[in-house]
Protein backbone atom coordinates (compact mmCIF):
# COMPACT_ATOMS: atom_id res chain seq x y z
CA UNK A 1 0.00 0.00 0.00
CA UNK A 2 1.13 3.52 -0.74
CA UNK A 3 0.17 6.59 1.21
CA UNK A 4 -1.27 9.44 -0.83
CA UNK A 5 -1.52 12.97 0.53
CA UNK A 6 -4.48 14.90 -0.87
CA UNK A 7 -4.77 18.70 -1.02
CA UNK A 8 -7.82 20.54 0.28
CA UNK A 9 -9.12 20.93 -3.26
CA UNK A 10 -9.80 17.17 -3.32
CA UNK A 11 -11.26 16.74 0.15
CA UNK A 12 -14.80 16.79 -1.23
CA UNK A 13 -13.95 13.43 -2.80
CA UNK A 14 -12.22 11.90 0.23
CA UNK A 15 -14.76 12.97 2.80
CA UNK A 16 -12.35 15.47 4.26
CA UNK A 17 -9.52 12.98 4.71
CA UNK A 18 -6.11 14.32 3.69
CA UNK A 19 -4.06 11.09 3.77
CA UNK A 20 -5.30 7.89 2.21
CA UNK A 21 -3.91 4.55 1.06
CA UNK A 22 -3.99 3.11 -2.45
CA UNK A 23 -2.38 0.32 -4.46
CA UNK A 24 -0.30 0.43 -7.63
CA UNK A 25 3.13 0.05 -9.15
CA UNK A 26 3.09 3.42 -10.89
CA UNK A 27 1.62 6.83 -10.11
CA UNK A 28 -0.93 6.15 -12.85
CA UNK A 29 -2.00 2.88 -11.24
CA UNK A 30 -2.22 4.46 -7.80
CA UNK A 31 -4.44 7.26 -9.13
CA UNK A 32 -6.64 4.74 -10.90
CA UNK A 33 -6.99 2.78 -7.67
CA UNK A 34 -7.77 6.02 -5.87
CA UNK A 35 -10.52 6.70 -8.41
CA UNK A 36 -12.17 3.38 -7.52
CA UNK A 37 -12.51 4.61 -3.93
CA UNK A 38 -13.36 8.20 -4.82
CA UNK A 39 -15.04 8.22 -8.27
CA UNK A 40 -14.13 11.20 -10.42
CA UNK A 41 -11.03 12.24 -8.45
CA UNK A 42 -8.50 11.10 -11.08
CA UNK A 43 -9.95 13.25 -13.88
CA UNK A 44 -9.71 16.35 -11.73
CA UNK A 45 -5.93 15.72 -11.41
CA UNK A 46 -5.06 14.07 -14.75
CA UNK A 47 -6.48 14.94 -18.17
CA UNK A 48 -7.67 12.53 -20.84
CA UNK A 49 -4.18 12.43 -22.36
CA UNK A 50 -2.68 11.27 -19.06
CA UNK A 51 -1.06 14.65 -18.44
CA UNK A 52 -0.96 16.21 -15.01
CA UNK A 53 -3.27 19.21 -15.05
CA UNK A 54 -1.59 22.58 -15.33
CA UNK A 55 -2.15 23.73 -11.78
CA UNK A 56 -1.71 20.41 -10.03
CA UNK A 57 1.60 19.08 -8.76
CA UNK A 58 2.49 15.49 -7.90
CA UNK A 59 5.56 14.41 -5.96
CA UNK A 60 6.89 11.02 -4.99
CA UNK A 61 8.63 11.90 -1.79
CA UNK A 62 10.52 15.02 -2.76
CA UNK A 63 10.77 14.17 -6.46
CA UNK A 64 8.47 16.08 -8.78
CA UNK A 65 6.55 13.81 -11.13
CA UNK A 66 6.18 14.81 -14.76
CA UNK A 67 5.14 11.44 -16.16
CA UNK A 68 2.53 9.41 -14.34
CA UNK A 69 4.18 6.19 -15.55
CA UNK A 70 6.79 6.77 -12.86
CA UNK A 71 7.25 3.65 -10.77
CA UNK A 72 6.45 3.70 -7.08
CA UNK A 73 7.10 1.22 -4.29
CA UNK A 74 5.59 0.45 -0.94
CA UNK A 75 8.01 2.75 0.86
CA UNK A 76 6.98 5.72 -1.24
CA UNK A 77 4.49 8.42 -0.44
CA UNK A 78 2.71 10.35 -3.16
CA UNK A 79 1.96 13.96 -2.42
CA UNK A 80 -0.57 15.85 -4.50
CA UNK A 81 -0.74 19.62 -4.30
CA UNK A 82 -2.83 22.37 -5.80
CA UNK A 83 -0.23 24.73 -7.21
CA UNK A 84 -0.54 28.49 -7.41
CA UNK A 85 -3.26 29.29 -9.89
CA UNK A 86 -4.02 32.94 -9.48
CA UNK A 87 -7.15 34.71 -8.25
Amino acid at each position, binding site marked *: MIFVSLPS*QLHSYSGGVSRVEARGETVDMVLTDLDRCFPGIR*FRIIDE*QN*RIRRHMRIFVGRDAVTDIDRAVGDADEILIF*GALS*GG
Partner: protein
Amino acid sequence: MARNIRLLIGTRKGAWICRGDSSHADWVMEGPIHLGQIVSHLVVDRRTGGTMLMAVATGHLGPTIFRSTDGGGTWVEAKRPPAFEKTTDSAIARAVDHTFWLENGHAGEPGVWWAGTSPPGLFVSEDDGVSWDGVSGFNDHPLYREWVPPDAGTPDGPLLNQVVIDPRDARHMYIATSTAGVFETTDRGASWRPLNKGVEASFLPDPYPEFGQDAHFIALAPSMPDRLWQQNHCGIYLLDRPEVTWERIGRAMPPEIGDIGFTIVPHPRDVDAAWVFPMDGTEVWPRTSPGGKPAVYGTRDAGRTWKRQDNGFPAEQAWFTVKRQAFCADDEEPLGLYLGTTGGEVWMSADEGGSWRNIGAHLPEIYSVVAAPTP
Protein backbone atom coordinates in the same frame (compact mmCIF):
# COMPACT_ATOMS: atom_id res chain seq x y z
CA MET B 1 -50.23 32.61 -16.61
CA ALA B 2 -47.60 34.27 -14.46
CA ARG B 3 -45.28 31.93 -12.60
CA ASN B 4 -42.54 32.34 -10.10
CA ILE B 5 -39.11 32.75 -11.64
CA ARG B 6 -35.75 31.40 -10.59
CA LEU B 7 -32.54 32.75 -12.05
CA LEU B 8 -29.74 30.20 -12.28
CA ILE B 9 -26.52 32.17 -11.93
CA GLY B 10 -23.06 30.82 -12.73
CA THR B 11 -20.06 32.83 -11.62
CA ARG B 12 -16.32 32.65 -11.52
CA LYS B 13 -16.57 31.56 -7.88
CA GLY B 14 -19.64 29.35 -7.65
CA ALA B 15 -23.35 29.31 -8.42
CA TRP B 16 -26.39 31.02 -6.94
CA ILE B 17 -30.12 30.75 -7.45
CA CYS B 18 -32.14 33.97 -7.27
CA ARG B 19 -35.85 33.41 -6.68
CA GLY B 20 -38.52 35.96 -7.51
CA ASP B 21 -42.28 36.08 -7.39
CA SER B 22 -44.47 36.60 -10.41
CA SER B 23 -44.81 40.31 -9.68
CA HIS B 24 -41.05 40.61 -10.12
CA ALA B 25 -41.06 42.59 -6.87
CA ASP B 26 -39.15 40.46 -4.40
CA TRP B 27 -36.00 38.51 -5.07
CA VAL B 28 -34.06 36.25 -2.73
CA MET B 29 -30.52 35.12 -3.41
CA GLU B 30 -29.74 31.52 -2.40
CA GLY B 31 -26.26 30.04 -2.37
CA PRO B 32 -23.45 29.69 -2.89
CA ILE B 33 -23.45 26.30 -4.53
CA HIS B 34 -19.97 24.85 -4.99
CA LEU B 35 -18.25 27.99 -3.73
CA GLY B 36 -14.93 28.53 -5.46
CA GLN B 37 -15.73 26.42 -8.51
CA ILE B 38 -15.71 28.23 -11.84
CA VAL B 39 -19.26 27.75 -13.09
CA SER B 40 -19.45 28.44 -16.81
CA HIS B 41 -23.06 27.41 -17.20
CA LEU B 42 -25.90 26.36 -14.89
CA VAL B 43 -29.03 25.18 -16.66
CA VAL B 44 -32.27 23.29 -16.12
CA ASP B 45 -33.97 20.92 -18.53
CA ARG B 46 -36.48 23.18 -20.27
CA ARG B 47 -38.42 20.10 -21.41
CA THR B 48 -39.23 18.84 -17.95
CA GLY B 49 -38.09 21.46 -15.45
CA GLY B 50 -36.31 18.59 -13.72
CA THR B 51 -32.64 17.79 -14.15
CA MET B 52 -30.19 20.63 -13.59
CA LEU B 53 -26.63 20.53 -14.95
CA MET B 54 -23.68 22.66 -13.92
CA ALA B 55 -20.42 22.93 -15.89
CA VAL B 56 -17.56 23.51 -13.46
CA ALA B 57 -13.81 23.61 -13.12
CA THR B 58 -11.54 25.28 -10.61
CA GLY B 59 -8.26 27.08 -10.82
CA HIS B 60 -6.59 23.80 -9.93
CA LEU B 61 -8.84 20.89 -10.77
CA GLY B 62 -9.96 19.63 -14.14
CA PRO B 63 -13.46 20.14 -15.53
CA THR B 64 -16.54 18.18 -14.70
CA ILE B 65 -20.34 18.25 -14.77
CA PHE B 66 -22.53 18.19 -11.68
CA ARG B 67 -26.16 17.05 -11.82
CA SER B 68 -29.09 17.77 -9.57
CA THR B 69 -32.48 16.12 -9.74
CA ASP B 70 -33.94 17.87 -6.69
CA GLY B 71 -34.01 21.47 -7.82
CA GLY B 72 -30.44 22.22 -6.84
CA GLY B 73 -30.58 20.83 -3.31
CA THR B 74 -27.98 18.13 -3.90
CA TRP B 75 -25.42 17.65 -6.64
CA VAL B 76 -23.76 14.49 -7.96
CA GLU B 77 -20.84 14.42 -10.36
CA ALA B 78 -21.31 12.97 -13.84
CA LYS B 79 -19.80 9.52 -14.13
CA ARG B 80 -18.00 10.39 -17.37
CA PRO B 81 -17.68 14.13 -18.06
CA PRO B 82 -16.84 15.44 -21.54
CA ALA B 83 -13.33 14.40 -22.58
CA PHE B 84 -11.59 14.01 -25.90
CA GLU B 85 -10.36 10.64 -27.13
CA LYS B 86 -6.99 9.59 -25.77
CA THR B 87 -4.27 9.61 -28.39
CA THR B 88 -0.60 8.73 -28.45
CA ASP B 89 0.14 11.51 -30.96
CA SER B 90 1.12 14.44 -28.75
CA ALA B 91 0.81 16.84 -31.69
CA ILE B 92 -2.95 16.40 -31.78
CA ALA B 93 -3.65 15.47 -28.17
CA ARG B 94 -6.48 17.58 -26.81
CA ALA B 95 -7.87 17.86 -23.32
CA VAL B 96 -11.05 19.60 -22.28
CA ASP B 97 -10.14 22.67 -20.24
CA HIS B 98 -13.73 23.47 -19.37
CA THR B 99 -17.24 22.85 -20.56
CA PHE B 100 -18.61 26.21 -21.63
CA TRP B 101 -22.16 25.52 -22.83
CA LEU B 102 -24.86 23.03 -21.87
CA GLU B 103 -27.95 22.54 -24.03
CA ASN B 104 -30.85 20.23 -23.54
CA GLY B 105 -31.65 18.08 -26.54
CA HIS B 106 -34.66 18.23 -28.80
CA ALA B 107 -38.07 17.88 -27.15
CA GLY B 108 -38.46 14.54 -28.90
CA GLU B 109 -35.24 13.20 -27.39
CA PRO B 110 -35.76 13.14 -23.62
CA GLY B 111 -32.60 12.66 -21.61
CA VAL B 112 -30.38 13.94 -24.41
CA TRP B 113 -28.02 16.83 -23.66
CA TRP B 114 -25.30 18.55 -25.70
CA ALA B 115 -22.17 20.31 -24.48
CA GLY B 116 -19.65 22.66 -26.05
CA THR B 117 -16.16 22.89 -24.61
CA SER B 118 -12.85 24.71 -24.67
CA PRO B 119 -10.89 23.85 -26.73
CA PRO B 120 -13.78 23.48 -29.15
CA GLY B 121 -15.40 20.10 -28.82
CA LEU B 122 -18.97 18.87 -29.15
CA PHE B 123 -20.22 16.23 -26.74
CA VAL B 124 -23.53 14.48 -26.26
CA SER B 125 -25.14 12.65 -23.37
CA GLU B 126 -27.94 10.18 -23.96
CA ASP B 127 -28.50 9.42 -20.26
CA ASP B 128 -29.53 12.78 -18.82
CA GLY B 129 -26.00 14.09 -18.33
CA VAL B 130 -24.51 11.11 -16.49
CA SER B 131 -22.03 10.13 -19.21
CA TRP B 132 -20.78 12.07 -22.22
CA ASP B 133 -19.34 11.06 -25.60
CA GLY B 134 -17.53 13.10 -28.20
CA VAL B 135 -19.30 13.89 -31.46
CA SER B 136 -16.81 12.63 -34.00
CA GLY B 137 -18.42 14.50 -36.89
CA PHE B 138 -17.07 17.73 -35.45
CA ASN B 139 -14.27 16.74 -33.07
CA ASP B 140 -12.53 14.53 -35.64
CA HIS B 141 -13.45 16.45 -38.77
CA PRO B 142 -10.58 16.53 -41.32
CA LEU B 143 -10.64 20.32 -41.22
CA TYR B 144 -10.69 20.55 -37.41
CA ARG B 145 -7.14 21.94 -37.26
CA GLU B 146 -8.14 24.68 -39.69
CA TRP B 147 -11.33 25.42 -37.78
CA VAL B 148 -9.37 25.54 -34.53
CA PRO B 149 -5.88 26.93 -35.24
CA PRO B 150 -3.39 26.26 -32.43
CA ASP B 151 -2.92 29.94 -31.63
CA ALA B 152 -6.59 30.93 -31.82
CA GLY B 153 -8.94 31.68 -29.01
CA THR B 154 -10.42 34.07 -26.53
CA PRO B 155 -8.66 35.12 -23.32
CA ASP B 156 -10.46 32.15 -21.74
CA GLY B 157 -9.39 29.82 -24.53
CA PRO B 158 -10.96 28.85 -27.85
CA LEU B 159 -14.61 27.94 -27.50
CA LEU B 160 -17.39 25.89 -28.94
CA ASN B 161 -19.66 28.32 -27.20
CA GLN B 162 -23.12 27.28 -28.27
CA VAL B 163 -25.37 24.52 -29.50
CA VAL B 164 -28.74 25.47 -30.99
CA ILE B 165 -31.33 22.89 -32.02
CA ASP B 166 -34.13 23.40 -34.50
CA PRO B 167 -37.34 22.69 -32.55
CA ARG B 168 -38.88 21.20 -35.71
CA ASP B 169 -36.09 18.70 -36.42
CA ALA B 170 -33.70 17.09 -33.96
CA ARG B 171 -31.22 16.42 -36.75
CA HIS B 172 -30.93 20.10 -37.66
CA MET B 173 -28.53 21.96 -35.39
CA TYR B 174 -26.22 24.94 -35.35
CA ILE B 175 -23.07 25.48 -33.33
CA ALA B 176 -21.15 28.69 -32.69
CA THR B 177 -17.39 28.80 -32.23
CA SER B 178 -14.90 31.51 -31.37
CA THR B 179 -12.42 30.27 -33.95
CA ALA B 180 -14.43 29.44 -37.06
CA GLY B 181 -17.86 30.99 -36.69
CA VAL B 182 -21.15 29.19 -37.17
CA PHE B 183 -21.68 25.66 -38.47
CA GLU B 184 -24.80 23.76 -39.45
CA THR B 185 -25.65 20.07 -39.48
CA THR B 186 -28.74 18.34 -40.85
CA ASP B 187 -27.72 14.86 -39.76
CA ARG B 188 -27.50 15.31 -35.99
CA GLY B 189 -23.82 16.16 -35.98
CA ALA B 190 -22.44 13.58 -38.38
CA SER B 191 -21.40 16.28 -40.84
CA TRP B 192 -20.97 20.04 -40.54
CA ARG B 193 -20.68 22.94 -42.95
CA PRO B 194 -19.72 26.56 -42.24
CA LEU B 195 -22.51 29.14 -42.28
CA ASN B 196 -20.65 32.44 -42.24
CA LYS B 197 -21.26 34.14 -45.55
CA GLY B 198 -21.49 37.89 -45.09
CA VAL B 199 -20.03 37.83 -41.57
CA GLU B 200 -16.91 39.90 -41.10
CA ALA B 201 -13.66 38.73 -39.55
CA SER B 202 -11.78 42.02 -39.44
CA PHE B 203 -8.84 40.36 -37.70
CA LEU B 204 -7.97 38.13 -40.69
CA PRO B 205 -6.31 38.97 -44.02
CA ASP B 206 -9.50 37.92 -45.82
CA PRO B 207 -12.20 39.79 -43.89
CA TYR B 208 -15.00 37.58 -45.23
CA PRO B 209 -13.64 34.01 -45.12
CA GLU B 210 -15.64 30.81 -45.36
CA PHE B 211 -14.77 30.20 -41.71
CA GLY B 212 -12.61 31.91 -39.09
CA GLN B 213 -15.20 34.28 -37.62
CA ASP B 214 -15.77 34.70 -33.90
CA ALA B 215 -19.45 34.01 -33.29
CA HIS B 216 -20.05 35.30 -29.78
CA PHE B 217 -23.68 34.19 -29.61
CA ILE B 218 -26.43 32.85 -31.87
CA ALA B 219 -30.12 32.39 -31.15
CA LEU B 220 -33.14 31.11 -33.02
CA ALA B 221 -36.27 33.19 -32.94
CA PRO B 222 -38.41 30.79 -30.90
CA SER B 223 -41.58 31.56 -32.80
CA MET B 224 -39.88 31.41 -36.21
CA PRO B 225 -36.93 28.99 -36.10
CA ASP B 226 -35.81 29.91 -39.61
CA ARG B 227 -34.65 33.24 -38.19
CA LEU B 228 -31.16 33.30 -36.67
CA TRP B 229 -29.77 36.22 -34.68
CA GLN B 230 -26.04 36.55 -34.15
CA GLN B 231 -23.93 38.80 -31.94
CA ASN B 232 -20.52 38.44 -33.47
CA HIS B 233 -17.10 39.80 -32.54
CA CYS B 234 -17.61 41.98 -35.63
CA GLY B 235 -21.20 43.12 -35.35
CA ILE B 236 -24.85 42.11 -35.07
CA TYR B 237 -26.28 39.92 -37.81
CA LEU B 238 -29.57 38.37 -38.90
CA LEU B 239 -30.17 35.41 -41.19
CA ASP B 240 -33.50 34.09 -42.44
CA ARG B 241 -33.09 30.56 -43.70
CA PRO B 242 -32.95 29.06 -46.23
CA GLU B 243 -30.83 32.10 -47.15
CA VAL B 244 -27.16 31.62 -46.36
CA THR B 245 -25.89 35.21 -46.33
CA TRP B 246 -26.07 37.06 -43.04
CA GLU B 247 -27.16 40.70 -42.98
CA ARG B 248 -25.27 43.05 -40.66
CA ILE B 249 -28.22 44.68 -38.93
CA GLY B 250 -25.88 46.26 -36.40
CA ARG B 251 -25.04 48.92 -38.98
CA ALA B 252 -28.18 50.68 -37.76
CA MET B 253 -26.81 51.02 -34.24
CA PRO B 254 -25.62 54.51 -33.21
CA PRO B 255 -22.05 54.92 -34.48
CA GLU B 256 -20.80 56.14 -31.12
CA ILE B 257 -22.05 52.90 -29.53
CA GLY B 258 -21.21 50.45 -32.27
CA ASP B 259 -22.53 46.92 -32.62
CA ILE B 260 -19.97 44.95 -30.64
CA GLY B 261 -21.11 42.82 -27.71
CA PHE B 262 -21.17 39.32 -26.37
CA THR B 263 -24.79 38.28 -26.55
CA ILE B 264 -28.25 38.74 -28.06
CA VAL B 265 -31.68 37.81 -26.71
CA PRO B 266 -34.60 37.30 -29.11
CA HIS B 267 -38.18 37.80 -27.99
CA PRO B 268 -39.88 34.42 -27.58
CA ARG B 269 -43.05 35.59 -29.38
CA ASP B 270 -42.22 38.71 -31.42
CA VAL B 271 -40.03 37.51 -34.28
CA ASP B 272 -38.73 41.01 -35.03
CA ALA B 273 -37.69 41.86 -31.47
CA ALA B 274 -34.34 41.28 -29.81
CA TRP B 275 -31.99 42.91 -27.31
CA VAL B 276 -28.23 43.38 -27.11
CA PHE B 277 -25.86 44.81 -24.51
CA PRO B 278 -23.18 46.72 -26.42
CA MET B 279 -19.61 46.90 -25.21
CA ASP B 280 -16.63 49.01 -26.18
CA GLY B 281 -14.80 47.28 -29.03
CA THR B 282 -12.64 50.23 -30.04
CA GLU B 283 -8.84 50.47 -30.10
CA VAL B 284 -7.60 48.04 -27.41
CA TRP B 285 -11.04 46.50 -26.86
CA PRO B 286 -11.86 47.54 -23.28
CA ARG B 287 -14.99 45.34 -23.39
CA THR B 288 -16.77 47.71 -21.00
CA SER B 289 -20.02 49.60 -21.31
CA PRO B 290 -19.32 52.29 -23.93
CA GLY B 291 -18.35 55.49 -22.11
CA GLY B 292 -19.08 53.87 -18.76
CA LYS B 293 -22.81 54.27 -19.44
CA PRO B 294 -24.42 50.84 -19.58
CA ALA B 295 -27.47 50.34 -21.75
CA VAL B 296 -29.46 47.67 -23.48
CA TYR B 297 -30.46 48.31 -27.06
CA GLY B 298 -33.61 46.74 -28.39
CA THR B 299 -35.10 46.36 -31.85
CA ARG B 300 -38.73 45.76 -32.79
CA ASP B 301 -38.21 45.71 -36.54
CA ALA B 302 -35.58 43.03 -37.10
CA GLY B 303 -32.68 45.40 -36.67
CA ARG B 304 -33.73 48.24 -38.95
CA THR B 305 -33.84 50.52 -35.91
CA TRP B 306 -32.54 50.21 -32.35
CA LYS B 307 -33.76 51.92 -29.19
CA ARG B 308 -31.55 52.70 -26.22
CA GLN B 309 -33.00 51.34 -22.96
CA ASP B 310 -30.97 52.56 -20.00
CA ASN B 311 -33.63 53.68 -17.52
CA GLY B 312 -32.45 52.50 -14.12
CA PHE B 313 -28.86 51.75 -15.03
CA PRO B 314 -26.13 54.03 -13.64
CA ALA B 315 -25.92 57.19 -15.73
CA GLU B 316 -22.11 57.26 -15.67
CA GLN B 317 -18.96 55.64 -14.29
CA ALA B 318 -20.26 52.07 -14.64
CA TRP B 319 -17.78 49.96 -16.56
CA PHE B 320 -19.23 46.47 -16.50
CA THR B 321 -20.24 44.31 -19.41
CA VAL B 322 -22.37 41.22 -19.91
CA LYS B 323 -20.86 37.94 -21.05
CA ARG B 324 -22.21 35.44 -23.56
CA GLN B 325 -24.55 33.40 -21.37
CA ALA B 326 -25.43 36.18 -18.93
CA PHE B 327 -28.42 37.82 -20.66
CA CYS B 328 -31.77 36.07 -20.98
CA ALA B 329 -35.54 36.39 -21.04
CA ASP B 330 -38.37 34.57 -19.33
CA ASP B 331 -41.61 33.84 -21.19
CA GLU B 332 -43.92 36.09 -19.20
CA GLU B 333 -46.24 38.76 -20.61
CA PRO B 334 -44.82 41.38 -20.66
CA LEU B 335 -41.47 39.79 -21.09
CA GLY B 336 -38.95 39.83 -18.26
CA LEU B 337 -35.31 40.41 -19.16
CA TYR B 338 -32.39 39.53 -16.89
CA LEU B 339 -28.67 40.14 -17.09
CA GLY B 340 -25.64 39.48 -14.93
CA THR B 341 -22.57 41.67 -15.11
CA THR B 342 -18.85 41.21 -14.91
CA GLY B 343 -19.11 43.28 -11.73
CA GLY B 344 -21.28 40.68 -10.03
CA GLU B 345 -24.60 42.49 -10.27
CA VAL B 346 -27.94 41.09 -11.41
CA TRP B 347 -30.34 43.43 -13.19
CA MET B 348 -33.88 42.78 -14.37
CA SER B 349 -36.54 44.50 -16.41
CA ALA B 350 -40.19 43.55 -16.00
CA ASP B 351 -41.28 45.64 -18.98
CA GLU B 352 -39.24 44.39 -21.92
CA GLY B 353 -36.30 46.68 -21.25
CA GLY B 354 -38.25 49.84 -20.48
CA SER B 355 -36.77 50.12 -17.02
CA TRP B 356 -34.09 48.23 -15.14
CA ARG B 357 -33.69 47.35 -11.48
CA ASN B 358 -30.75 45.91 -9.58
CA ILE B 359 -31.92 42.73 -7.86
CA GLY B 360 -28.56 41.35 -6.78
CA ALA B 361 -25.09 42.67 -6.08
CA HIS B 362 -21.69 41.72 -4.71
CA LEU B 363 -21.51 38.36 -6.47
CA PRO B 364 -18.32 37.26 -8.22
CA GLU B 365 -17.98 37.92 -11.94
CA ILE B 366 -21.12 36.51 -13.53
CA TYR B 367 -20.71 34.08 -16.41
CA SER B 368 -24.26 32.88 -16.97
CA VAL B 369 -27.87 33.72 -16.11
CA VAL B 370 -30.73 31.41 -17.03
CA ALA B 371 -34.36 32.27 -16.26
CA ALA B 372 -36.57 29.28 -15.50
CA PRO B 373 -39.98 28.82 -13.98
CA THR B 374 -40.04 27.51 -10.44
CA PRO B 375 -41.32 23.92 -10.64
